[in-house]
């Protein structure tokens, strides 16, 4: 066997092993032990960068063990516009996302307890079509807030979304009004709503429920903004600094209450809710 073929197979084999053992940090590019990374809640042990996590991982680290009861898990996307773009039909993308994630939508909703405080929770999952806000996403978020209203429970939404789901056109835009109408009802009933913004929370999601929490909390270094960086740079014809649209930038400008490390989130949430005195 010629030497170069041998080298190639070795490298391939090495890569397979490395994917199992190592995790490369998107921020500092360091290779860290995968197990260390997972034990650290997908936060890079070297630089503290908060990596993406799945909805069920989030639920696992937020709710008291065994308390989660899922709501409306069968609600899934339709294809109201019969949308086909340059790469194919929307339905194919949905099928792919469902297969990849095992989820029916970009949000998981349900009830549970945080340090023994009963809550309704909605957790977005970025892996499902970039966490985009479609009709079914909006429906689940609204139904969860309706449930909170009926049962007089606090509502917590973890956002992770690039914004509206273009494949559902105007109906996607309408989900912004729909979800906010649900938040308005909670407010009128004096029920707490806490919004947790994780990487990324942009576009139509930042411009709807994610920004109107009674308390807005973000994870460190998350991308939080309305318009896309490139669109802004083209509009104002200047380069934007790296810090632009980070959690820390948004905190500095007064739109967040705090930026909290993932490991402290659970206790922060229960701490805030412990002051709810109705």
């Amino acid at each position, binding site marked *: 066997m010629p030497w170069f073929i041998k080298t190639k197979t070795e490298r391939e084999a090495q890569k397979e092993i490395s994917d199992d053992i190592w995790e490369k940090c998107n921020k500092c590019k360091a290779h860290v032990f995968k197990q260390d990374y997972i034990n650290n809640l997908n936060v890079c042990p070297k630089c503290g960068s908060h990596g993406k996590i799945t909805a069920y991982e989030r639920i696992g680290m937020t709710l008291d063990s065994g308390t989660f009861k899922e709501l409306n898990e069968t609600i899934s996307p339709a294809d109201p516009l019969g949308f086909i773009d340059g790469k194919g039909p929307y339905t194919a993308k949905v099928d792919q996302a469902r297969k990849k994630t095992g989820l029916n939508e970009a949000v998981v909703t349900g009830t549970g307890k945080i340090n023994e405080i009963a809550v309704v929770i909605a957790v977005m999952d970025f892996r499902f079509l970039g966490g985009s806000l*479609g009709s079914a996403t909006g429906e689940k978020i609204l139904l969860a807030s309706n449930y909170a209203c009926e049962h007089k429970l606090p509502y917590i939404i973890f956002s992770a979304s690039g914004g509206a789901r273009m494949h559902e*056109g105007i109906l996607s835009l309408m989900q912004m009004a729909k979800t906010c109408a649900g*938040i308005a009802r909670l407010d*009128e009933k004096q029920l707490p709503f806490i919004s947790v913004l994780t990487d990324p929370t942009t576009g139509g999601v930042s411009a709807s429920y994610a920004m109107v929490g009674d308390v807005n909390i973000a994870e460190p270094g998350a991308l939080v903004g*309305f318009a896309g960086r490139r669109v802004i740079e083209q509009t104002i014809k200047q380069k934007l600094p790296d810090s632009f649209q980070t959690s820390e930038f948004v905190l500095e400008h007064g739109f967040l209450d705090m930026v909290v490390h993932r490991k402290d989130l659970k206790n922060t949430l229960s701490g805030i809710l412990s002051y709810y005195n109705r």
Partner: protein
Amino acid sequence: MSEFDFEKPVAEMEKAIEKLKNINSDNKTDFNAQLADLEAKLIERKKEIYDNLTPWQTVQVARHQKRPVLFDYIKYIFTDFIELHGDRHFGDDHAMVGGFAKLGNEKVMLIGHSKGKNIEENIKRNFGQAKPEGYRKALRLMRLAEKFNVPVITFVDTQGAFPGLDAEERGQHEAIARNLTEMAKIKVPIITVVTGEGGSGGALGIAVADSVMMLSYAVYSVISPEGCAGILWRDASFSSNAAEALKITAKSLLELGVIDEIIHEPVGGAQTDPQQTAENIKEVVLKQLKKLSAYSATKLLNKRFEKFSAMGKFNR
């Protein structure tokens, strides 16, 4: 005269009519019958074209430079306009205009995006692209309308909320989100007319209404066709495909249940007869006002909640 590419088929007819008219006056020969015939055909042909505009062609009409803007409509159908300024926090956004006004005998709070019709005006009004202070001014005026117990009428005409550094710093997301949330609680009727471009969150920020109407050649979309083509086709030259796929015309939106009524505009677009367009808006808005003013505040809010709750299609 024809101004759009898709009007080319009638441009020839218009030329022929002009010629006939000139001959008529010079030679006093009787071409009247022929002229009348041609003019009738022209109107028919033009109507046919406008009845069959593609979504992308509709976008061109909606963005026409001479399309009536908010201050045109104020001039044509509103009286006693008392403009109110400022968001009480940062400044006064000229891309968002509002104040008390009378529509017929009805006292209303009028709020709308304000585009200009020339460069100077457009620079002053930021091409109708409001910043957070614009949305906050709009909300302040809606709350004032609630206090004074007068209905709110909003006119939507914007490419979108302004995508700038200052707008981000002052919380464009929060300003729009706040309006969406608070508009669900405003205890007076809210009526929205999309008159030109309904650009995404920037449009919706003043459009959470009990009745939403659209002019027949207006468009309303989650993203511009160019933006969508750039992302999903990776090429802005597919804007026409994106416009088609996004379903952004008044007819499509009526079918999707997003708007309640289409307001007729003249063949050729609102700019060919702004006065008539304005009168059409007035008639429909007054009709909607009459209907909505019969509801109690509780019923109004419940219906508004149900209306937006029902938006969207999905599988259970």
